[in-house]
């Protein structure tokens, strides 16, 4: 039972409540850094570290933090983790750090992270909070990667820097420029809407059939 519960919290973030595709949170870093798959992965890792770390701390201190100043406390905890992530990336992979630039400090303003602290980590025990954070961060990473991969393949004809097509490939430059981000995400959301619509239709059909059958 207990194991199932934390598994449930983990899985819901990846698909059913996917932070980007379903809840439409955390859009800013989402669109800005996804012009290549490797940037998307680096951003996903940094966000995961920040989200899991701050969920753990917030959940640990949830009885100590006074309700009136909780938002400020959350933000300071998040900012601390972001500073750690920023300096770690600078030390380990300076090239990626340079590419992501100001968007690493901007993780602090990602509504997804603050939203999870407020909605989940500050109300549930530590184990569940960490599982929830891992699931949400996984879903976020999945979304970042799918957007980054689509944009890099269409806009540059490559994935992780490896050429996928022959010499004759004409890159669709606009995909790696800002408009491509908006358009790609719009189309992906359209696909999710369609999926949901089909599922609702199917469920309605099943209910109809059951009613007429009985």
């Amino acid at each position, binding site marked *: 039972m207990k194991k199932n519960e934390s598994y449930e919290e983990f899985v819901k973030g990846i698909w059913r409540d996917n932070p980007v595709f379903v809840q439409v949170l955390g859009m800013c870093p989402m*669109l*800005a850094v996804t012009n290549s798959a490797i940037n998307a992965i680096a951003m996903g890792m940094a966000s995961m570290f920040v989200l899991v770390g701050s969920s753990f701390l917030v959940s640990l201190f949830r009885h100590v933090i006074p309700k009136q100043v909780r938002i400020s406390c959350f*933000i300071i905890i998040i900012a601390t983790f972001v500073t750690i992530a920023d300096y770690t990336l600078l030390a380990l992979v300076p090239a990626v750090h340079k590419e992501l630039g100001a968007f690493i400090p901007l993780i*602090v303003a990602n*509504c997804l992270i603050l939203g999870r602290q407020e909605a989940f980590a500050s109300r549930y025990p530590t184990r569940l909070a960490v599982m929830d954070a891992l699931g949400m961060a996984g879903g976020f990473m999945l979304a970042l990667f799918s957007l980054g991969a689509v944009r890099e393949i269409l806009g540059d004809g490559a994935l992780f820097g490896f050429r996928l097509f022959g010499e004759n490939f004409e890159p669709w430059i606009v995909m790696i420029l800002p*408009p491509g981000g908006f358009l790609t995400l719009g189309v992906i959301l*359209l696909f999710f809407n369609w999926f949901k*619509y089909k599922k609702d239709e199917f469920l309605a059909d099943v209910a109809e059939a059951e009613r007429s059958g009985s």
Partner: protein
Amino acid sequence: MDNLPWIFVSALLVNNFVLTYFLGLCPFLGVSNSLATSARLGLATTFVMLVTAVCAWVLNTYVLIHAPYLRLICFIVVIASTVQFIEMLIKKLSPALFRAMGIFLPLITTNCAILGLAIFATNRGYGFVEGIVYALGAGIGFTLAMVLLAGLREESELSNIPKLIQGTAMNLIIAGVLSMAFMGFAGLFSSS
């Protein structure tokens, strides 16, 4: 001081915060369903940006030289208190506007456009006047993008759009087209 107009136009059009840097998308997609609300939210954001630019300059010049690793925490605390102050001000002056903005007023705190402004201005080493001009350009650019999207969305309410595409998907595609239009401004400065 030659570059002041350049900084302003660049932040306003060429490097528009919303459509080129993807900053401040949450209010951009969330509040842009009415023209009046989005214009007011844009003005409130511009004001917060101006105050933030001044605070960021003071912090950078006098405090943070000694402890650069505290920059992010300092900025976010300053922005949060500014927003709190403006929230109280609006609540007092115009309760109707306060209700119309709802949750998005406190959320200016987590509006990445504001923090982004402070960080970009710091990274580029802008001085006091340059910082203020930059903030003004960025704020007006943000308002412009908000108002444009709100206008388009109000028009689209009247037309017959398939149910499947309504909502965020359509807004993102509209934003994509707007962003493409703004890319046309990139040729405004040939030597930069």
